[in-house]
């Protein structure tokens, strides 16, 4: 039996560890000794039971020396620092498949984020690009799809895409994680698949707001289709092919996230529409809703490439400019764009 590494004990990290543990030994990394002891004592984390094949560690060296295949799944804000702690122990023989749906931003001239910030492709990195930048690992992949952790843990059927430029990585990923209730597809368009997963969180926030206001299924259908077009159009300028947005990691993930109260980003939109303030919502959540930051980044990118992004802009105003949800919706319904599909 192979030993596979997982970095990160969030709900998705734990779910992935449990999936892998069905056919492999798993070494699950958590940063602090305290957390390790707590989880070890209960063999349970946020309601998820740990599979007996999972062993916990807080040593990056142990994880890197024992595992050739590693799944890093930590929030994008701490991803780069996490990789840096592993860098001394990683070599070109390692394969890393991450599952983080966020972007790393390198601010131009070290400026602070503001309304006038403009970002270009050079200022952002997907997590696979962070891995390439910070370590010697070249064989990098990403897994993404309709993968709500809770449903996976309940043994409900789900699918994911493993994307990498290297077929080797896709094959290793599929071999390790595929099971009777978890289907896995492959793709070589890693940037496209990553961006589809990242930007869909924007639409998920909007979907939450629509759901909270009981605006009906027609409104949701409109949002999902227009939203897909919007994020695909923007992603084209960032090196993605539109096809990625039509697959399991695109439409598939979008539909799941935009309908589920178990999705963090959906919840943010839902609670906003119910009148809560963003600060309160963030403070009360125990895991990061990546979409909030993604809205800000997409807003700054759209300015650079002159892409029409009404949904993103509206959310930006709601999240960061105190615009009301109703006002935002009025703006969207008044916005005139005639063409239907223009991103393929």
């Amino acid at each position, binding site marked *: 039996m192979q030993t596979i590494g997982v970095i990160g004990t969030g709900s998705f990290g734990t779910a992935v560890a449990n999936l892998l543990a069905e056919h492999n030994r798993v070494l699950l990394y958590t940063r602090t000794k305290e957390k390790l002891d707590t989880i070890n004592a209960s063999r349970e984390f946020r309601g998820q039971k740990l599979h007996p094949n999972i062993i916990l560690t807080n040593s990056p060296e142990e994880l890197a020396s024992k595992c050739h295949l590693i799944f890093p799944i930590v929030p994008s804000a701490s991803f780069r620092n996490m990789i840096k702690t592993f860098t001394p122990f990683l070599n*070109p*023989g390692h394969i890393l498949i991450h599952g983080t749906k966020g972007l790393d931003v390198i601010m131009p001239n070290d400026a602070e984020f503001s309304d006038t910030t403009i970002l270009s492709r050079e200022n952002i990195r997907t997590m696979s690009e962070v891995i390439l930048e910070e370590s010697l690992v070249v064989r990098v992949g990403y897994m993404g799809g309709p993968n709500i952790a809770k449903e996976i843990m309940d043994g409900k059927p789900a699918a994911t895409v493993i994307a990498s430029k290297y077929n*080797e990585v896709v094959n290793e990923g599929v071999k390790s994680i595929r099971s009777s209730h978890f289907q896995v597809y492959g793709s070589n368009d890693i940037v496209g698949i990553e961006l589809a997963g990242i930007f869909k969180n924007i639409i998920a926030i909007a979907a939450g707001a629509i759901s909270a206001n009981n605006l009906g299924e027609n409104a949701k259908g409109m949002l999902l289709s227009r939203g897909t077009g919007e994020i695909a159009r923007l992603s084209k300028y960032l090196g993605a092919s539109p096809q990625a947005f039509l697959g399991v990691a695109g439409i598939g993930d979008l539909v799941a996230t935009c309908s589920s109260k178990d999705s963090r980003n959906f919840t943010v939109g839902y609670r906003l529409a119910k009148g809560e303030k963003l600060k309160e919502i963030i403070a009360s959540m125990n895991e990061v809703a990546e979409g909030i930051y993604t809205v800000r980044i997409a807003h700054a990118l759209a300015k650079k490439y002159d892409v029409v992004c009404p949904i993103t802009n509206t959310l930006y105003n709601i999240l960061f400019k105190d615009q009301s949800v109703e006002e935002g919706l009025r703006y969207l319904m008044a916005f005139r764009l005639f063409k239907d599909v223009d991103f393929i």
Partner: protein
Amino acid sequence: MALLPFIDSSASDWPIVKLSENREAFVKEIVQESVRKILSHYAKADDLYDEISSTLFQEKIRITEKKWKVDPADEQEFWGDIRKQLLVNPVERNETEFKKHLEQVLESIVTRYAEEIAGQFEMGAFKFARNAVEQGFSYMLTTATDRSIKRLTGEKPTLNDRIHFLGNTEKIKRLSEIGTVIILPTHFSNLDSILVGWSIDKIGLPPFAYGAGINLYNNAILGYFMNRLGAYKVDRRKKNAIYLETLKTHTQLSIQKGCHNLFFPGGTRSRKGNLEDHLKMGLLSTTIEAQEYNLFNSNGNGKKIFVVPMVINYHLVLEANGLINDYLSHAGQEKYLEKDKSLKPWQIFKFLWKFFGLGSEIYLSYGDPKDLFGNAVDDKGNSIDKAGRVIDLKQYFTLNGAYKYDHQRDSEYTKQLAIQIVKGFHKYNVVLSSHLVAFTAFEILLNQYKKLDLYEMMRLPADYRIISRNMLEGAVEKVLAKLNLMATKGEVILAPHLGKDTSALVNHGIRQMGVYHTTLPLRINKDGNIVSDNLKLLYYYHNRLEGYGLRSIINKKALVETAFFG
């Protein structure tokens, strides 16, 4: 100026010498290996038959429609014979025997190709050639140099004043003793082959094997020198899979045997005049395959392969006119080569005479040697990561700790290597006054006539092609300021003559660009303003600074301001 001594005192140990001494055995090995690879693609006899037939068909067309002086006399005969051998009655044929028969036909084709490709390095002729090139250059330099310059300075000019070597050539030399060095230059002119061959020798490296277009052999003088300086032949008319596999196998085997190699990764001369951004993956992939062989095959020598991007910087390119016309007429890169437009000896002489006579300079800029994965290497040839740790290259080829061959992975590695080399071209490019002035002048015109497309631009009437001197100098200063900033970050190199004051710099650039061409890309008119008589050429020289993000600096508003107030 004396030639540097060779670093390797026992020249008879050079792999290139050994290969040539055992040429017959080497050709045999190429044939065996190529046939093995080709057969692995065509499991069924019918597929192999189709491939050989299509090769025969293409070769027949080449022989009748694209004949060159250099082609051997027995071409008709050879391919006629192959045709006869392919005439097998399908009713009577026995599958196993048929396949065996086809394999023999394949072998005879591959043998012919391998014999043609493999070079014949000769030590005696090599020594003669290196001296001849050296003395030829020196003779032209001392004879052609403007007498007034000689009288003024009272000093004899030397080649060192004109041909500049940049980069850590000492390190490249050291690495050539430890491993196998692959030099990958940009390609602008047919003269590049001689120049790079000579320069490799000049900095004290042992001779390199290099692929030279077979069309160059139409020119007796070029052909003579190239053969002796380690060249092997590449025929770009032959695009069939059998030929390409033989060519790749030749290169891979020669690298595996430790021969230092040089190839132009852009494949052909840059039509547009820009630094190549699309490289040929076929030849490049041989380096990855050879490295893998060296590390894992029991016959492998374990030697490491180092790549060195190199940029050749001329003020002017002899063939600029034909190249840019070809680019603009969309004739396609390949078609152009099929015409035999090799340089005539008198053209080369005239060019060199002008080059040396007018104080023109050439910068040969060698990049930092790296391993195939873009890692820096130390003096001992170890690959080093950012933190200074030594990297074990074997790990790039292992899966779950064990070696595993994976063709798709290797071709991805080749793509990454290409990206690394293109980056190197930009980093080690030396900006010359002529590049800077051509770029700025053409951008000004583009800005003034924004509504026109490129082809309409080229037909701009004469009185619309005038740029005020003020405007040009103002814009040159702006572009130079940005380039200076980039140079401090190591993103490009600036030639020392760019330090002149702007007016002198503009004059220098215009004069150097115009050295050879009959209609000038830029000249100064009687009012002291700048005119272009040949916009195509101006566009060609302008393209050299493409890809640095300099375009945005020159905008109309700023230009108008400088013209009137600056």
